[in-house]
């Protein structure tokens, strides 16, 4: 018994360590990008994902590699969580020809079909019907896979998103809508954008979909709820909405901790709920040596810095590339 439970404990610890590694990868990637952005090396609009890592990783860990995910303007984390390639990402941000979209898209346009990250678009709300369309194909071809869409509380206010809940419910599509509710749409606070008594749970359930709310700062809560929802979706093709309450640690699209509009989600609160720091604390409390986590971070950072160095030496697209790729052959 004792041996079995120790084994189980260490297996759990391994799972958690893996999740932590993924979240840390997202965090370190963003931190490296911040430095870069401040050095004025990136000429692509960047939206930083710092603080929301538990959502991307918690949800993606509940999926199989064959499931698909799609995202919005803030999708570096969504992409990396799906097993994305940081080197190709940074090449894209630097406008190089070996980037994810050959430099044509930039930061708001992540795509990598090799890991089933099916694309991201900054037009708010558009990802909901697009992901429903992906799920439609999965159902149509009886693939048994699902699609998860990531978007924010701002995007969730677009009419097309509500229309899509109905449509996805009508066609019984295997789709998971993940709302990252950070309370902000650029600098507009949610309380200035929602009717008193607005209740997303009632709305979603009113469309016949399943609704869950998770603490998006907590990997466990996100992961457990996402897993249960995905199981439900696979079993009965009933689409679901997972609303994750998170903090956007930085300004909308600059790496500053701009405080002017943030009376509710103060810097102190954000730091207190930092998902990466808190998971590290949990691991240390369960006996993982802190040294190990520090080494892990150093290793990730070194690897990313070498990716950045590679990207900086990568070629730019040639002028003739302007005219390629508009149509498929």
């Amino acid at each position, binding site marked *: 018994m004792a041996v079995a439970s120790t084994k189980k404990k260490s297996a759990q610890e391994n799972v958690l360590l893996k999740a932590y590694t993924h979240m840390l990868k997202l965090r370190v990637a963003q931190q490296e990008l911040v430095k870069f952005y401040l050095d004025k090396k990136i*000429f*692509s609009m960047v939206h930083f994902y710092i603080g929301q890592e538990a959502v991307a990783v918690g949800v993606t860990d509940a999926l199989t590699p064959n499931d698909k995910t799609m995202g919005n303007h803030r999708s570096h984390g969504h992409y990396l969580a799906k097993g994305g390639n940081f080197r190709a990402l940074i090449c894209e941000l630097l406008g190089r020809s070996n980037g994810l979209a050959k430099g044509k898209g*930039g930061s708001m346009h992540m795509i990598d079909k090799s890991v089933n990250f099916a694309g991201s678009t900054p037009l708010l709300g558009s990802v909901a019907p697009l992901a429903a369309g992906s799920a439609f194909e999965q159902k149509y071809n009886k693939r048994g896979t699902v699609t998860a869409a990531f978007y924010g509380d701002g995007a969730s*206010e*677009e009419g097309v998103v509500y229309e899509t809940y109905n449509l996805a419910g009508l066609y019984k599509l295997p789709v998971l809508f993940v709302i990252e509710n950070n309370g902000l*749409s*650029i600098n507009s606070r949610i309380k200035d*954008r929602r009717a008193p008594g607005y209740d997303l749970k009632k709305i979603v359930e009113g469309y016949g979909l399943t609704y869950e709310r998770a603490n998006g700062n907590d990997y466990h809560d996100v992961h457990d709820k996402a897993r249960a929802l995905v199981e439900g979706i696979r079993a009965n093709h009933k689409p679901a909405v997972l609303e994750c309450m998170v903090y956007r640690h930085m300004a909308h699209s600059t790496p500053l901790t701009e405080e002017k509009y943030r009376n509710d989600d103060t810097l102190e609160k954000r730091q207190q709920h930092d998902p990466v720091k808190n998971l590290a604390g949990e691991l240390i409390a369960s006996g993982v040596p802190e040294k190990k986590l520090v080494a892990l971070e150093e290793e990730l950072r070194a690897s990313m810095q070498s990716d950045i160095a590679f990207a900086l030496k990568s070629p730019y*697209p040639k002028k003739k590339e*302007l005219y390629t790729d508009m149509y498929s052959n």
Partner: protein
Amino acid sequence: MAERILKFSDAIKEATDQMLAEDKRVYVLGLGVPQGAGGTTNGLHEKYPGRVLDTPTSEASLTGLAVGSAIAGLRPIVHHDRVEFSLLAADQMFTQAAKWNYMFGGGNPVPITIRIVVGRQWGNGPQHSQALYSMFGAVRGLKVVIPSTPYMAKGLLIAAAREPNPVIILEPRWLYGTKQDVPTEMYEVPLSKAKVVRKGKDITVVAYGDGLVSSLEALDIIGSKASVELIDVVSINPLDIATIRKSVAKTGRLLCVDTTSEAFGIGSEVIAGVMKTQTLKVKPVSLACPNVPCPTSTSLTEFWYPTKVDIANKVLSMLKKGGVKQKLSFEELHLAPSLTLK
């Protein structure tokens, strides 16, 4: 009177402030307007409580609400931060606001102003930098203008807000940092008229918005090598072709500068309008962006927009004069200008 140099964005804010003060029916609606909308509305929500309103991220519905309130007699100024975002409200702009008066046989004004920012800027790419001018020009029932200077930005907004019809103002974000001497008092710039900016006799250059500013800079490069008549299109709906024809009748040469793809561009429309009634000394030219989406990498956008040097050289070559060689810096190519206009 002493000069008062104002930024493009501040000129918009001043016009908005003055309209809010002048007319109780005026209110401002749009995502983020209390926080400033690029410096064009900040502070106004405190000065005019309840009249500068934040919205849900719901373009279709907020625009429709504004149209409905205009039909009922208010005078909303709506702000959309990019053309692409405004497209979610296409029905409300193109099919509701634009047709309401006509389809009810008149007597049903829709006094709404919709400010839409055109997103030319580094790093914006295919989904954030479309201009789509021709789309707005093609919809009957709208008045559509493009300000090219802080002076125009203020005067056009005041004219639009006092107008009984739906007016779309397509504001090039590229120009938000440009500066100019702007009068303190309220004034209108007529909505449906082109403007001769510089008189000349050899060639007519027709431009608008960001391209107008590049054309002004091109004139400095050309210097005394050619006498250029520069026309600011100002209004693309309706298009004031008469002013352009009059100029071309004098010069016999026509160059149009477009800061969007050539296909279905304003240049094509101007050239068609002129050629129907006039014969030119040389073939008309439209200097425009390539017929592909605008990419993100600066190594590609470098070739996307016509520059002041391109414009100068095109003018000189149409006059069979030698061109100039001038290499533009990264900043000149990719960063929005902050120059002070005359």
